[in-house]
Protein backbone atom coordinates (compact mmCIF):
# COMPACT_ATOMS: atom_id res chain seq x y z
CA UNK A 1 0.00 0.00 0.00
CA UNK A 2 1.34 3.40 -0.93
CA UNK A 3 1.96 6.04 1.72
CA UNK A 4 -0.60 8.27 0.08
CA UNK A 5 -3.25 5.56 0.31
CA UNK A 6 -2.38 4.87 3.97
CA UNK A 7 -2.69 8.53 4.80
CA UNK A 8 -6.02 8.72 3.01
CA UNK A 9 -7.40 5.68 4.86
CA UNK A 10 -6.11 6.98 8.20
CA UNK A 11 -7.85 10.31 7.60
CA UNK A 12 -11.14 8.57 6.90
CA UNK A 13 -10.79 6.56 10.10
CA UNK A 14 -10.01 9.62 12.18
CA UNK A 15 -13.00 11.44 10.79
CA UNK A 16 -15.32 8.53 11.54
CA UNK A 17 -14.17 8.19 15.14
CA UNK A 18 -14.37 11.95 15.60
CA UNK A 19 -18.02 11.90 14.54
CA UNK A 20 -18.84 8.96 16.81
CA UNK A 21 -17.06 10.38 19.85
CA UNK A 22 -18.76 13.76 19.35
CA UNK A 23 -22.17 12.12 19.18
CA UNK A 24 -21.58 10.26 22.45
CA UNK A 25 -20.21 13.41 24.03
CA UNK A 26 -23.29 15.42 23.13
CA UNK A 27 -25.50 12.76 24.72
CA UNK A 28 -23.45 12.73 27.93
CA UNK A 29 -23.39 16.51 28.17
CA UNK A 30 -27.13 16.66 27.59
CA UNK A 31 -27.96 14.07 30.24
CA UNK A 32 -25.44 15.57 32.66
CA UNK A 33 -26.83 19.06 32.23
CA UNK A 34 -30.38 17.81 32.66
CA UNK A 35 -29.49 15.98 35.87
CA UNK A 36 -27.52 18.95 37.20
CA UNK A 37 -30.19 21.55 36.44
CA UNK A 38 -32.92 19.33 37.92
CA UNK A 39 -30.82 18.65 40.99
CA UNK A 40 -30.14 22.35 41.57
CA UNK A 41 -33.83 23.10 41.10
CA UNK A 42 -33.19 25.38 38.12
CA UNK A 43 -35.69 23.39 36.10
CA UNK A 44 -38.78 21.87 37.66
CA UNK A 45 -38.38 18.15 38.33
CA UNK A 46 -42.12 17.90 38.58
CA UNK A 47 -42.41 18.66 34.90
CA UNK A 48 -39.23 17.37 33.32
CA UNK A 49 -38.18 14.62 35.74
CA UNK A 50 -34.47 13.77 35.70
CA UNK A 51 -32.32 11.03 34.20
CA UNK A 52 -31.62 9.35 37.53
CA UNK A 53 -35.33 9.16 38.40
CA UNK A 54 -36.19 7.71 35.03
CA UNK A 55 -33.54 5.05 35.47
CA UNK A 56 -35.05 4.19 38.86
CA UNK A 57 -38.47 3.66 37.32
CA UNK A 58 -37.03 1.44 34.64
CA UNK A 59 -35.14 -0.49 37.28
CA UNK A 60 -38.40 -1.38 39.04
CA UNK A 61 -39.48 -3.11 35.91
CA UNK A 62 -41.76 -5.73 37.41
CA UNK A 63 -43.35 -3.89 40.28
CA UNK A 64 -44.74 -1.16 38.05
CA UNK A 65 -45.77 -3.37 35.12
CA UNK A 66 -43.69 -1.24 32.77
CA UNK A 67 -42.99 -4.20 30.55
CA UNK A 68 -46.70 -4.85 30.12
CA UNK A 69 -47.34 -1.24 29.14
CA UNK A 70 -44.48 -1.19 26.67
CA UNK A 71 -45.92 -4.35 25.19
CA UNK A 72 -49.32 -2.70 24.68
CA UNK A 73 -47.86 0.37 23.04
CA UNK A 74 -45.63 -1.70 20.78
CA UNK A 75 -48.58 -3.88 19.85
CA UNK A 76 -50.76 -0.89 18.98
CA UNK A 77 -47.96 0.69 17.00
CA UNK A 78 -47.33 -2.47 14.99
CA UNK A 79 -51.00 -3.01 14.22
CA UNK A 80 -51.41 0.63 13.21
CA UNK A 81 -48.24 0.43 11.15
CA UNK A 82 -49.27 -2.76 9.37
CA UNK A 83 -52.77 -1.54 8.56
CA UNK A 84 -51.50 1.89 7.46
CA UNK A 85 -48.84 0.40 5.22
CA UNK A 86 -50.96 -2.28 3.57
CA UNK A 87 -53.97 -0.02 3.09
CA UNK A 88 -51.71 2.75 1.79
CA UNK A 89 -50.07 0.37 -0.64
CA UNK A 90 -53.40 -0.89 -1.96
CA UNK A 91 -54.79 2.61 -2.43
CA UNK A 92 -51.56 3.76 -4.10
CA UNK A 93 -51.81 0.84 -6.53
CA UNK A 94 -55.41 1.75 -7.37
CA UNK A 95 -54.45 5.37 -7.96
CA UNK A 96 -51.49 4.31 -10.13
CA UNK A 97 -53.79 2.05 -12.08
CA UNK A 98 -56.24 4.80 -12.95
CA UNK A 99 -54.60 8.09 -13.73
CA UNK A 100 -58.01 9.72 -13.92
CA UNK A 101 -58.97 8.72 -10.38
CA UNK A 102 -55.55 9.90 -9.19
CA UNK A 103 -56.07 13.29 -10.83
CA UNK A 104 -59.59 13.61 -9.41
CA UNK A 105 -58.47 12.77 -5.88
CA UNK A 106 -55.20 14.72 -5.93
CA UNK A 107 -56.44 17.94 -4.24
CA UNK A 108 -58.31 15.96 -1.59
CA UNK A 109 -55.23 13.94 -0.74
CA UNK A 110 -53.24 17.14 -0.32
CA UNK A 111 -55.92 18.61 1.98
CA UNK A 112 -56.22 15.41 4.00
CA UNK A 113 -52.46 15.31 4.33
CA UNK A 114 -52.23 18.82 5.75
CA UNK A 115 -55.12 18.25 8.17
CA UNK A 116 -53.89 17.93 11.79
CA UNK A 117 -55.00 14.35 12.42
CA UNK A 118 -54.82 14.70 16.21
CA UNK A 119 -57.78 17.04 15.92
CA UNK A 120 -59.80 14.07 14.70
CA UNK A 121 -59.24 12.38 18.07
CA UNK A 122 -62.62 13.21 19.65
CA UNK A 123 -64.50 12.16 16.50
CA UNK A 124 -62.60 8.88 16.39
CA UNK A 125 -63.49 8.20 20.01
CA UNK A 126 -67.15 8.89 19.30
CA UNK A 127 -67.09 6.56 16.32
CA UNK A 128 -65.11 3.58 17.56
CA UNK A 129 -65.17 4.06 21.31
CA UNK A 130 -62.44 5.02 23.75
CA UNK A 131 -60.22 1.97 23.58
CA UNK A 132 -57.42 0.26 21.79
CA UNK A 133 -59.41 0.59 18.58
CA UNK A 134 -59.38 4.37 18.76
CA UNK A 135 -55.63 4.36 19.33
CA UNK A 136 -55.03 2.17 16.31
CA UNK A 137 -57.36 4.24 14.13
CA UNK A 138 -55.38 7.28 15.19
CA UNK A 139 -52.12 5.61 14.19
CA UNK A 140 -53.57 4.66 10.81
CA UNK A 141 -55.01 8.14 10.26
CA UNK A 142 -51.61 9.68 10.80
CA UNK A 143 -49.61 7.32 8.60
CA UNK A 144 -52.03 6.43 5.79
CA UNK A 145 -52.08 9.53 3.60
CA UNK A 146 -48.32 9.98 3.74
CA UNK A 147 -47.91 6.34 2.70
CA UNK A 148 -50.26 6.78 -0.24
CA UNK A 149 -48.56 9.95 -1.43
CA UNK A 150 -45.03 8.54 -1.05
CA UNK A 151 -45.70 5.24 -2.77
CA UNK A 152 -47.77 6.82 -5.54
CA UNK A 153 -45.00 9.34 -6.16
CA UNK A 154 -42.49 6.50 -6.44
CA UNK A 155 -44.77 4.51 -8.76
CA UNK A 156 -45.40 7.44 -11.07
CA UNK A 157 -41.67 8.16 -11.27
CA UNK A 158 -40.70 4.68 -12.35
CA UNK A 159 -38.28 4.85 -15.30
CA UNK A 160 -40.54 5.30 -18.34
CA UNK A 161 -38.09 3.47 -20.56
CA UNK A 162 -38.37 0.29 -18.49
CA UNK A 163 -42.14 0.41 -18.84
CA UNK A 164 -41.81 1.01 -22.57
CA UNK A 165 -39.43 -1.94 -22.81
CA UNK A 166 -42.02 -4.17 -21.15
CA UNK A 167 -44.64 -2.80 -23.52
CA UNK A 168 -42.52 -3.78 -26.52
CA UNK A 169 -43.07 -7.35 -25.29
CA UNK A 170 -46.77 -6.68 -25.20
CA UNK A 171 -46.95 -6.55 -21.38
CA UNK A 172 -50.33 -6.15 -19.71
CA UNK A 173 -50.83 -3.49 -17.06
CA UNK A 174 -50.77 -6.07 -14.26
CA UNK A 175 -47.43 -7.39 -15.55
CA UNK A 176 -46.01 -3.88 -15.68
CA UNK A 177 -47.13 -3.42 -12.08
CA UNK A 178 -45.73 -6.66 -10.69
CA UNK A 179 -42.63 -7.05 -12.83
CA UNK A 180 -41.47 -3.46 -13.29
CA UNK A 181 -43.12 -0.88 -11.06
CA UNK A 182 -43.14 -2.78 -7.74
CA UNK A 183 -39.60 -4.20 -7.95
CA UNK A 184 -38.26 -0.86 -9.21
CA UNK A 185 -39.69 0.83 -6.12
CA UNK A 186 -38.00 -1.28 -3.47
CA UNK A 187 -36.25 1.74 -1.98
CA UNK A 188 -39.52 3.70 -1.97
CA UNK A 189 -41.09 0.94 0.14
CA UNK A 190 -38.19 0.80 2.56
CA UNK A 191 -38.29 4.57 3.00
CA UNK A 192 -42.01 4.51 3.45
CA UNK A 193 -41.74 1.75 6.07
CA UNK A 194 -39.17 3.77 8.00
CA UNK A 195 -41.31 6.88 8.02
CA UNK A 196 -44.45 4.90 8.85
CA UNK A 197 -43.19 3.18 11.94
CA UNK A 198 -42.35 6.61 13.37
CA UNK A 199 -45.70 8.09 12.40
CA UNK A 200 -47.59 5.11 13.84
CA UNK A 201 -45.83 5.61 17.15
CA UNK A 202 -46.78 9.28 17.09
CA UNK A 203 -50.36 8.21 16.36
CA UNK A 204 -50.42 5.67 19.16
CA UNK A 205 -49.03 8.10 21.70
CA UNK A 206 -51.44 10.86 20.76
CA UNK A 207 -54.16 8.21 20.92
CA UNK A 208 -53.05 7.16 24.37
CA UNK A 209 -53.20 10.72 25.60
CA UNK A 210 -56.72 11.10 24.30
CA UNK A 211 -58.19 7.82 25.41
CA UNK A 212 -57.75 8.41 29.12
CA UNK A 213 -59.19 5.11 30.26
CA UNK A 214 -56.70 2.98 28.41
CA UNK A 215 -54.16 5.61 27.59
CA UNK A 216 -51.15 7.44 28.84
CA UNK A 217 -49.69 4.09 29.52
CA UNK A 218 -45.99 4.42 29.36
CA UNK A 219 -46.22 8.08 30.05
CA UNK A 220 -48.25 7.47 33.12
CA UNK A 221 -45.33 5.59 34.49
CA UNK A 222 -42.58 7.86 33.35
CA UNK A 223 -44.64 10.62 34.83
CA UNK A 224 -44.65 8.91 38.18
CA UNK A 225 -40.91 9.19 38.38
CA UNK A 226 -41.46 12.91 38.78
CA UNK A 227 -42.95 12.55 42.21
Amino acid at each position, binding site marked *: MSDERKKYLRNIKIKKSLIFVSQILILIVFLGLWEYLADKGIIDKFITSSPSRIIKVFANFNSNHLLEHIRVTVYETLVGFTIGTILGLIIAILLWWSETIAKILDPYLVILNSLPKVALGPIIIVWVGAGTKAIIVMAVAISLIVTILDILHGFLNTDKD*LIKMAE*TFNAKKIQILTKIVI*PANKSTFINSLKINIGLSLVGVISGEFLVSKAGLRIFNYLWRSNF
Partner: protein
Amino acid sequence: MEVLKIRKLSKKYQHENGETLALDNINLVVEQGEFVSIIGPSGCGKSTLLSIITGLESKTSGDIFIENKKMNGISSEIGYMLQKDCLLEWRTIYSNVLFGLEIKHMKNRENILYAESLLKKYDLYDFKDKYPNQLSGGMRQRVALIRTLCTKPKILLLDEAFSALDYQTRIKVTEDIYNILKKENITTLMVTHDISEAISMADKVVVLTKRPGTIKKIHKIHFDLENRTPLNCRETPNFSEYFNILWKELGVDER
Protein backbone atom coordinates in the same frame (compact mmCIF):
# COMPACT_ATOMS: atom_id res chain seq x y z
CA MET B 1 -40.46 -12.72 -49.21
CA GLU B 2 -41.77 -9.39 -47.94
CA VAL B 3 -41.52 -9.46 -44.17
CA LEU B 4 -42.72 -5.91 -43.67
CA LYS B 5 -44.76 -3.76 -45.99
CA ILE B 6 -45.88 -0.24 -45.17
CA ARG B 7 -48.44 1.39 -47.42
CA LYS B 8 -49.43 5.06 -47.46
CA LEU B 9 -48.77 5.46 -43.76
CA SER B 10 -49.44 8.82 -42.15
CA LYS B 11 -49.42 9.94 -38.55
CA LYS B 12 -50.84 13.04 -36.97
CA TYR B 13 -50.29 13.66 -33.26
CA GLN B 14 -53.06 15.45 -31.39
CA HIS B 15 -52.11 17.59 -28.44
CA GLU B 16 -53.53 20.49 -26.49
CA ASN B 17 -51.86 23.18 -28.58
CA GLY B 18 -52.85 21.69 -31.92
CA GLU B 19 -51.80 18.83 -34.13
CA THR B 20 -48.45 17.72 -35.54
CA LEU B 21 -48.15 15.88 -38.80
CA ALA B 22 -45.23 13.60 -37.99
CA LEU B 23 -45.24 11.20 -40.95
CA ASP B 24 -46.74 11.62 -44.38
CA ASN B 25 -47.35 8.94 -46.99
CA ILE B 26 -44.64 6.43 -46.09
CA ASN B 27 -44.26 3.44 -48.41
CA LEU B 28 -41.63 0.84 -47.65
CA VAL B 29 -40.90 -2.83 -48.13
CA VAL B 30 -38.39 -4.88 -46.14
CA GLU B 31 -37.43 -8.30 -47.50
CA GLN B 32 -36.56 -11.42 -45.52
CA GLY B 33 -33.02 -11.21 -44.11
CA GLU B 34 -32.54 -7.64 -45.21
CA PHE B 35 -30.98 -4.89 -43.09
CA VAL B 36 -32.64 -1.55 -43.74
CA SER B 37 -31.44 1.71 -42.17
CA ILE B 38 -33.60 4.78 -41.91
CA ILE B 39 -31.91 8.14 -41.50
CA GLY B 40 -33.37 11.58 -41.16
CA PRO B 41 -32.94 14.76 -39.15
CA SER B 42 -33.99 14.54 -35.52
CA GLY B 43 -37.67 15.14 -34.96
CA CYS B 44 -38.62 13.91 -38.43
CA GLY B 45 -40.66 11.01 -37.11
CA LYS B 46 -38.25 8.06 -37.07
CA SER B 47 -39.18 6.87 -33.60
CA THR B 48 -42.82 7.48 -34.41
CA LEU B 49 -42.53 5.16 -37.41
CA LEU B 50 -41.10 2.33 -35.31
CA SER B 51 -43.66 2.85 -32.54
CA ILE B 52 -46.44 2.59 -35.11
CA ILE B 53 -44.99 -0.58 -36.61
CA THR B 54 -44.95 -2.23 -33.16
CA GLY B 55 -48.39 -0.91 -32.37
CA LEU B 56 -47.32 1.13 -29.34
CA GLU B 57 -48.60 4.19 -31.17
CA SER B 58 -51.71 4.38 -33.34
CA LYS B 59 -51.58 5.33 -37.00
CA THR B 60 -53.73 7.99 -38.62
CA SER B 61 -54.03 6.30 -42.00
CA GLY B 62 -52.36 3.65 -44.14
CA ASP B 63 -51.66 -0.03 -43.67
CA ILE B 64 -48.91 -2.23 -42.27
CA PHE B 65 -48.44 -5.84 -43.29
CA ILE B 66 -46.24 -8.44 -41.62
CA GLU B 67 -45.68 -11.38 -43.95
CA ASN B 68 -48.72 -10.21 -45.90
CA LYS B 69 -50.92 -10.20 -42.81
CA LYS B 70 -52.51 -6.87 -42.02
CA MET B 71 -51.53 -5.59 -38.58
CA ASN B 72 -53.85 -4.36 -35.89
CA GLY B 73 -52.63 -3.20 -32.48
CA ILE B 74 -49.53 -4.51 -30.73
CA SER B 75 -47.92 -7.35 -32.61
CA SER B 76 -46.10 -10.16 -30.92
CA GLU B 77 -44.16 -10.82 -34.10
CA ILE B 78 -42.01 -7.73 -33.84
CA GLY B 79 -38.92 -7.27 -31.71
CA TYR B 80 -38.18 -3.72 -30.62
CA MET B 81 -34.95 -2.49 -29.10
CA LEU B 82 -34.78 0.93 -27.56
CA GLN B 83 -31.92 3.36 -27.19
CA LYS B 84 -31.16 2.26 -23.65
CA ASP B 85 -30.66 -1.43 -22.95
CA CYS B 86 -33.36 -1.25 -20.27
CA LEU B 87 -32.02 -4.23 -18.36
CA LEU B 88 -33.70 -4.71 -14.99
CA GLU B 89 -31.05 -4.13 -12.34
CA TRP B 90 -32.76 -6.40 -9.80
CA ARG B 91 -32.68 -9.44 -12.08
CA THR B 92 -29.72 -11.57 -13.05
CA ILE B 93 -28.58 -11.64 -16.66
CA TYR B 94 -30.26 -15.00 -17.12
CA SER B 95 -33.55 -13.77 -15.73
CA ASN B 96 -33.29 -10.57 -17.78
CA VAL B 97 -32.87 -12.61 -20.94
CA LEU B 98 -35.99 -14.62 -20.12
CA PHE B 99 -38.02 -11.49 -19.33
CA GLY B 100 -39.58 -11.21 -22.80
CA LEU B 101 -40.56 -14.87 -22.86
CA GLU B 102 -42.03 -14.52 -19.38
CA ILE B 103 -44.16 -11.51 -20.35
CA LYS B 104 -45.37 -13.23 -23.51
CA HIS B 105 -46.10 -16.50 -21.69
CA MET B 106 -43.67 -18.27 -24.00
CA LYS B 107 -41.35 -19.58 -21.31
CA ASN B 108 -41.33 -23.20 -22.43
CA ARG B 109 -38.44 -25.66 -22.57
CA GLU B 110 -37.71 -25.11 -26.22
CA ASN B 111 -37.48 -21.34 -25.95
CA ILE B 112 -35.42 -21.48 -22.78
CA LEU B 113 -32.96 -23.79 -24.49
CA TYR B 114 -32.84 -21.39 -27.43
CA ALA B 115 -32.13 -18.46 -25.09
CA GLU B 116 -29.36 -20.45 -23.40
CA SER B 117 -27.84 -21.38 -26.74
CA LEU B 118 -27.75 -17.72 -27.74
CA LEU B 119 -26.11 -16.82 -24.43
CA LYS B 120 -23.48 -19.49 -25.03
CA LYS B 121 -22.91 -18.56 -28.65
CA TYR B 122 -22.37 -14.92 -27.86
CA ASP B 123 -20.10 -15.34 -24.83
CA LEU B 124 -22.54 -14.38 -22.13
CA TYR B 125 -23.30 -17.73 -20.55
CA ASP B 126 -20.52 -17.38 -17.97
CA PHE B 127 -22.14 -14.15 -16.82
CA LYS B 128 -25.65 -15.51 -16.52
CA ASP B 129 -25.76 -15.26 -12.72
CA LYS B 130 -24.29 -11.77 -12.61
CA TYR B 131 -26.31 -8.58 -12.39
CA PRO B 132 -26.47 -5.96 -15.18
CA ASN B 133 -24.30 -3.43 -13.31
CA GLN B 134 -21.44 -5.95 -13.36
CA LEU B 135 -21.36 -5.94 -17.18
CA SER B 136 -19.83 -3.54 -19.69
CA GLY B 137 -22.03 -1.40 -21.92
CA GLY B 138 -21.37 -3.64 -24.91
CA MET B 139 -22.30 -6.81 -23.05
CA ARG B 140 -25.46 -5.23 -21.73
CA GLN B 141 -26.51 -4.35 -25.25
CA ARG B 142 -25.93 -7.95 -26.31
CA VAL B 143 -28.04 -9.18 -23.42
CA ALA B 144 -30.83 -6.82 -24.47
CA LEU B 145 -30.61 -8.14 -28.02
CA ILE B 146 -30.82 -11.75 -26.91
CA ARG B 147 -33.78 -10.89 -24.68
CA THR B 148 -35.55 -9.75 -27.83
CA LEU B 149 -34.27 -12.46 -30.19
CA CYS B 150 -35.31 -15.39 -28.02
CA THR B 151 -38.96 -14.42 -28.56
CA LYS B 152 -38.26 -15.17 -32.24
CA PRO B 153 -39.57 -11.97 -33.81
CA LYS B 154 -40.17 -11.89 -37.57
CA ILE B 155 -38.51 -8.50 -37.76
CA LEU B 156 -36.29 -6.56 -35.40
CA LEU B 157 -36.60 -2.81 -34.96
CA LEU B 158 -33.67 -0.82 -33.58
CA ASP B 159 -34.22 2.77 -32.48
CA GLU B 160 -30.86 4.51 -32.20
CA ALA B 161 -29.97 1.42 -30.23
CA PHE B 162 -26.29 2.31 -29.94
CA SER B 163 -26.36 6.06 -29.48
CA ALA B 164 -26.07 5.90 -25.69
CA LEU B 165 -22.64 4.24 -25.99
CA ASP B 166 -19.28 5.98 -26.29
CA TYR B 167 -17.62 5.90 -29.67
CA GLN B 168 -15.20 2.99 -29.09
CA THR B 169 -17.85 0.75 -27.52
CA ARG B 170 -20.27 1.75 -30.20
CA ILE B 171 -18.06 0.54 -33.04
CA LYS B 172 -17.45 -2.73 -31.21
CA VAL B 173 -21.13 -3.26 -30.38
CA THR B 174 -22.21 -2.49 -33.94
CA GLU B 175 -19.80 -5.16 -35.11
CA ASP B 176 -21.09 -7.69 -32.52
CA ILE B 177 -24.75 -7.03 -33.15
CA TYR B 178 -24.32 -7.10 -36.91
CA ASN B 179 -22.62 -10.50 -36.73
CA ILE B 180 -25.35 -11.90 -34.52
CA LEU B 181 -28.10 -10.59 -36.79
CA LYS B 182 -26.47 -12.00 -39.91
CA LYS B 183 -25.73 -15.38 -38.30
CA GLU B 184 -29.28 -15.73 -37.05
CA ASN B 185 -30.62 -14.33 -40.34
CA ILE B 186 -32.71 -11.64 -38.65
CA THR B 187 -34.61 -9.11 -40.73
CA THR B 188 -33.83 -5.69 -39.31
CA LEU B 189 -35.09 -2.15 -39.59
CA MET B 190 -32.79 0.35 -37.88
CA VAL B 191 -33.35 4.01 -37.23
CA THR B 192 -30.41 6.35 -36.67
CA HIS B 193 -29.26 9.89 -37.29
CA ASP B 194 -25.67 8.73 -37.81
CA ILE B 195 -24.93 8.45 -41.53
CA SER B 196 -21.85 6.22 -41.13
CA GLU B 197 -23.68 3.84 -38.87
CA ALA B 198 -26.57 3.64 -41.30
CA ILE B 199 -24.33 2.78 -44.26
CA SER B 200 -22.03 0.45 -42.37
CA MET B 201 -24.76 -2.07 -41.56
CA ALA B 202 -27.37 -1.63 -44.26
CA ASP B 203 -28.44 -3.30 -47.48
CA LYS B 204 -30.75 -0.36 -48.03
CA VAL B 205 -30.72 3.16 -46.63
CA VAL B 206 -33.98 5.10 -46.51
CA VAL B 207 -33.65 8.87 -46.30
CA LEU B 208 -36.47 10.80 -44.66
CA THR B 209 -37.13 14.49 -45.07
CA LYS B 210 -37.53 16.75 -42.08
CA ARG B 211 -40.95 16.85 -40.44
CA PRO B 212 -43.39 15.77 -41.70
CA GLY B 213 -41.24 12.77 -42.52
CA THR B 214 -41.69 11.52 -46.06
CA ILE B 215 -39.42 9.21 -47.96
CA LYS B 216 -36.95 11.28 -49.93
CA LYS B 217 -34.94 8.49 -51.43
CA ILE B 218 -34.01 4.85 -50.98
CA HIS B 219 -30.41 3.83 -51.67
CA LYS B 220 -29.26 0.27 -52.25
CA ILE B 221 -25.93 -0.29 -50.52
CA HIS B 222 -23.44 -2.76 -51.88
CA PHE B 223 -19.79 -3.47 -51.12
CA ASP B 224 -17.50 -5.79 -53.06
CA LEU B 225 -16.34 -7.57 -49.95
CA GLU B 226 -16.49 -11.26 -49.27
CA ASN B 227 -17.01 -10.98 -45.57
CA ARG B 228 -18.57 -7.64 -45.10
CA THR B 229 -18.69 -6.21 -41.60
CA PRO B 230 -19.58 -2.71 -40.37
CA LEU B 231 -15.89 -2.11 -39.73
CA ASN B 232 -14.21 -3.33 -42.91
CA CYS B 233 -16.71 -1.70 -45.25
CA ARG B 234 -15.83 1.67 -43.76
CA GLU B 235 -12.42 1.41 -45.38
CA THR B 236 -13.68 0.98 -48.95
CA PRO B 237 -13.92 3.89 -51.41
CA ASN B 238 -17.58 3.02 -51.92
CA PHE B 239 -18.26 3.91 -48.35
CA SER B 240 -17.14 7.52 -48.66
CA GLU B 241 -19.11 7.82 -51.88
CA TYR B 242 -22.29 6.70 -50.18
CA PHE B 243 -21.47 8.94 -47.28
CA ASN B 244 -21.13 12.01 -49.49
CA ILE B 245 -24.36 11.34 -51.32
CA LEU B 246 -26.32 10.86 -48.10
CA TRP B 247 -24.62 13.78 -46.42
CA LYS B 248 -25.75 16.09 -49.22
CA GLU B 249 -29.28 14.73 -49.19
CA LEU B 250 -29.62 15.25 -45.48
CA GLY B 251 -27.80 18.57 -45.54
CA VAL B 252 -30.34 20.17 -47.83
CA ASP B 253 -32.99 19.55 -45.23
CA GLU B 254 -31.01 20.45 -42.17
CA ARG B 255 -30.21 23.91 -43.38
